[in-house]
């Protein structure tokens, strides 16, 4: 440490995770600080706002126990950085990048700014490389490509994490050796943390996995750092080491709630449902870090998981996410209750980049037409199901009955594949087979009543 340090024992107020300090000169916006407490304990802080010689500092470990008279704030001259190296594989860190697996810290090859820099749109490579997840509802109908960000919209109690892990496990099989996984977990419970660790170990993925885990009992501010650290690590592995990185972020709802907590502590004008007005920009600074770069081998594919409060897809968190990500996979409580796994509600699902990743030479010629036909037939079947509740099965035409039976079979066999790892060929063949339930003539007029 320098002999002359700029240390300021001038904390004027403390609100939630924020401290307001005076006479903080020379600290830059976003700069990291050391908060030294009366007993000598050291906490980390970050400058959020500057006004004259006053600074608002968010304390990463929370402000509990800070004595405004005795504590001091010391800008470090550094922005928030994380040490990265190839030794990260198989390790578990907290949301600040400190190891929490009982092993010593890694020796960093590089210190990267965790906020990252925006990817130049002109440097991006068009994402068109098909990723086989082995899940029919995704591969067949909402195809994932490398460099895409495709979130899972879940509800409380729905098996989003199981699905995410299945995708990770199965993509690993189809992808080459340069595939790796980064887990960024925000505000998860101890049980969930245990589940992830065990599942990754069981699948043998752990030596190709880096985990950044912030548990529900950990400081709130750490949740804001976790996805950024995870992505800094991902950028290192993808664009410096050439890996195809799959980043799983869970649970974005906990992240957004942390954002709201800070916003309200700063007395900002709240936006919809009291989430800050800049939440779109903030989420974009995370999600937009997925992608591929021209002339680079690696890629970052992102699968954020979020819990829709009360299964409401118009809630600001899923809403803003859907506006940024390239589609969404939506889970359905109704299907889950029926015992369909994975309970993917395909109608509101979408993969915006699907058309780039499918077709001749990638999946199969006619993939698009088949997917559209399945969609239309299933939508029609759902309409018929509604009709049944009004007119009863007797009131149905022969044709309606066929659509009804198609939708049942489709849910049971196509969507409800269980733990099976299905190749794209098996998925498409099954789709073709199921369409035989509906008369050929009908398929020329898909969705005609819809």
């Amino acid at each position: 440490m320098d002999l002359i340090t700029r240390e300021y024992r001038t904390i004027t107020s403390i609100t939630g995770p924020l401290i307001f300090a005076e006479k903080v000169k020379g600290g830059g916006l976003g700069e990291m600080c050391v908060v030294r407490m009366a007993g000598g304990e050291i906490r980390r802080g970050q400058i959020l706002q500057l006004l004259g010689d006053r600074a608002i500092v968010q304390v990463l470990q929370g402000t509990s126990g800070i004595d405004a008279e005795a504590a001091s704030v010391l800008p470090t001259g550094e922005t928030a950085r994380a040490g990265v190296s190839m030794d990260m594989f198989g390790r578990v860190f907290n949301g600040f990048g400190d190891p929490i697996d009982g092993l010593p810290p890694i020796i960093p090859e590089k210190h990267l700014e965790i906020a990252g820099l925006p990817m130049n749109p002109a440097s991006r490579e068009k994402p068109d490389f098909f990723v086989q997840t082995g899940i029919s509802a995704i591969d067949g109908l909402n195809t994932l490509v490398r460099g895409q960000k495709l979130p899972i919209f879940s509800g409380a109690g729905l098996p989003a994490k199981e699905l995410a892990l299945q995708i990770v496990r199965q993509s690993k099989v189809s992808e080459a050796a340069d595939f790796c996984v980064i887990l960024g977990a925000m505000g998860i419970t101890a049980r969930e943390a245990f589940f992830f660790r065990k599942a990754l170990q069981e699948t043998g993925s752990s030596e190709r996995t880096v985990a950044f885990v912030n548990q529900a009992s950990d400081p709130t501010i750490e949740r804001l750092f976790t996805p950024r650290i995870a992505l800094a690590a991902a950028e290192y592995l993808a664009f410096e080491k050439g890996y195809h990185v799959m980043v799983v972020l869970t649970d974005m709802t906990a992240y957004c709630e942390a954002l709201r907590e800070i916003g309200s502590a700063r007395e900002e004008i709240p936006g919809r449902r009291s989430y800050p007005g800049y939440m779109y920009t903030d989420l974009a600074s995370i999600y937009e870090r997925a992608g591929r770069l021209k002339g680079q081998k690696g890629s970052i594919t992102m699968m954020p998981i979020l819990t829709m409060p009360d299964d409401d897809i118009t809630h600001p968190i899923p809403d803003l996410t859907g506006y940024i990500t390239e589609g969404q996979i939506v889970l359905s409580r109704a299907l889950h209750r029926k015992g369909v796994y994975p309970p993917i509600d395909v109608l509101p699902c979408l993969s915006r980049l699907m058309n780039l990743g499918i077709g001749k030479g990638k999946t199969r010629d006619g993939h698009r037409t088949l997917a559209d036909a399945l969609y239309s037939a299933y939508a029609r079947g759902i309409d018929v199901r509604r009709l049944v509740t009004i007119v009863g099965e007797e009131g149905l035409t022969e044709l309606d009955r066929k659509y009804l039976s198609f939708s049942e079979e489709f849910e049971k066999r196509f969507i409800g594949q269980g733990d099976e790892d299905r190749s794209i060929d098996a998925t498409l063949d099954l789709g073709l087979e199921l369409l035989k339930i509906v008369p050929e003539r009908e398929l020329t007029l898909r969705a005609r009543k819809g």
Partner: protein
Amino acid sequence: MKEIRGKIYGVSGPTVIASGMSNAVMNTVCLVGRQGLLGEIIRIREDRAILQVYEDTGGLTVGEEVVSYGRPLSVTLGPGLLTNIVDGIQRPLLKIKEASGGFIGKGVKAEALEMDRVWEFRPVKKPGDHVEPGAIIGEVPETERITHRVMAPPGVSGVIKDIISGNATGRAPVCVLEDGTEIGLYQQWPVRLQRPFKAKLPPEVPFKTGQRVFDTLLPVAEGGTAIVPGGFGTGKTVVEQTIAKYATCDIVIYVGCGERGNEMSEILTDFPTLKDPATGLPLSLRTVIVVNTSNMPVAAREASIFTGITIAEYYRDMGYSVALLADSISRWAEALREISSRLEEMPGEEGFPPYLATQLGGFYERSGKVKCLGPDERTGSITVISAVSPPGGDFSEPVTQASLRFAGALWALDPDLAYRRHFPAVNWLVSFSLYQTELLDWYSREISPDMLRLRARLFELLQKQSELREIIQIIGVEALQEADRLTLEVANIASEAFLKQSIFNEADAFNTFEKQFWMLKVLFAYMDNASAALKRGVYIETILDSPLRTRVLRMQNTPNDGFGKNAEGLINEIESEFSTVEEK
């Protein structure tokens, strides 16, 4: 111009407070801090100026210098704009890529246009000629597609003393007037100031998108404005991109405002290879892309639509028809809100500042068909088509509502149609076009007087369809009367074959007005003849099982060229088959 030097007093997100800025001028730009980040003064309080900074403010400290040269935020206009891709404040992203690789580094500087690039200047005036503002003094072949017209800037007039011919760059003037005024290839224009023109002209010609649901049902006029609101996943971006690809116009300005980087990479990769249907030349030759993705600085996002429309006005002034596609105006409004909230302004509805509608109006009203400045009677137009992203897909929110006040056409996208993969997912019952009355003459004159009648029938058919659908929701389709069942079938063919349009099918992706007209002819010939047969006592099953239905249903897959002839043949077959088919 006076130079003012102040110091940073506060930093909060994208806004910076500078002190010691007495005499600073509103909406002029400053260089902020050691890295010289670009910022614009958006509020002045005593000797303090509040700036929105167009680059990442991370690392700025109190006390760093802020310098103002008293210039407004401007764009450079001149040859080289086309095929270019710039960020919200016209920084060339390809140059930045050369300088800082895959990511946009902090404080990277690059000139908007290459001043040293050599262009072939062909004068159309000679020494002794008089020029007035907007007069064309020469031409530069900017791309194979577009001839760049070099104009005397607004406010410049006089007699030409000297004019060059041949190679020219941005470093020397191409023309000098008697009074010493120099005219170069390039000019600067403040983005927030509308470029002048002689007069606005009424919107009487349709803007041809090549998309049936828009051109036939919900037309926008050349010089008009259309808004495309829709929840996520309803296909706003696809609509914008489809229009960028297939619209019949001279210039396309595509503003990716706060949207996805991967989508932009798709445009960047595809446009140089895709052909403009009118000329067969690559689309990129008529396109300027302004892109400020959601993760790029929020203030530059706010500026991006103004940068885009200023470039659009410049080409309009040359006498071109320009389409400005903004995706999405909601992201711009959110940037405005974010900055307003940092200024601790009193929020209006949903936290948006009360001046949202004024600013939006200022943007939309820069569209229009105009008589350009200059001695010739040339006209140019800007058609604005902007996507709106209402939170939760709820159109009652402020940005959609404010946009509706300025828009002449509403193309409302519907999640239900999108779920069914019916694209463009335009809800034809909610959408409207205010231009239809003004355009009726054109339809009648240029296509056929019959077009108006067919169009009205289509509206009626679709209205009937929605009524019948409500009924079958309750009683089932079997309980419908046979005539109604037939109407429903034809309406379904209309939505499937006419309103739905596939960009993946070459013949279907872009349709001429003529094809659209003939498709309607076929559809209603089918309807009328089938109705007549039904009245005669033919089974409805017999009618529906006829392979003619499938052929009508697939007529969109027949190419534009020669469609009329094919359609006539099909109509004849329909007439002969339905008049001879046997009764029960």
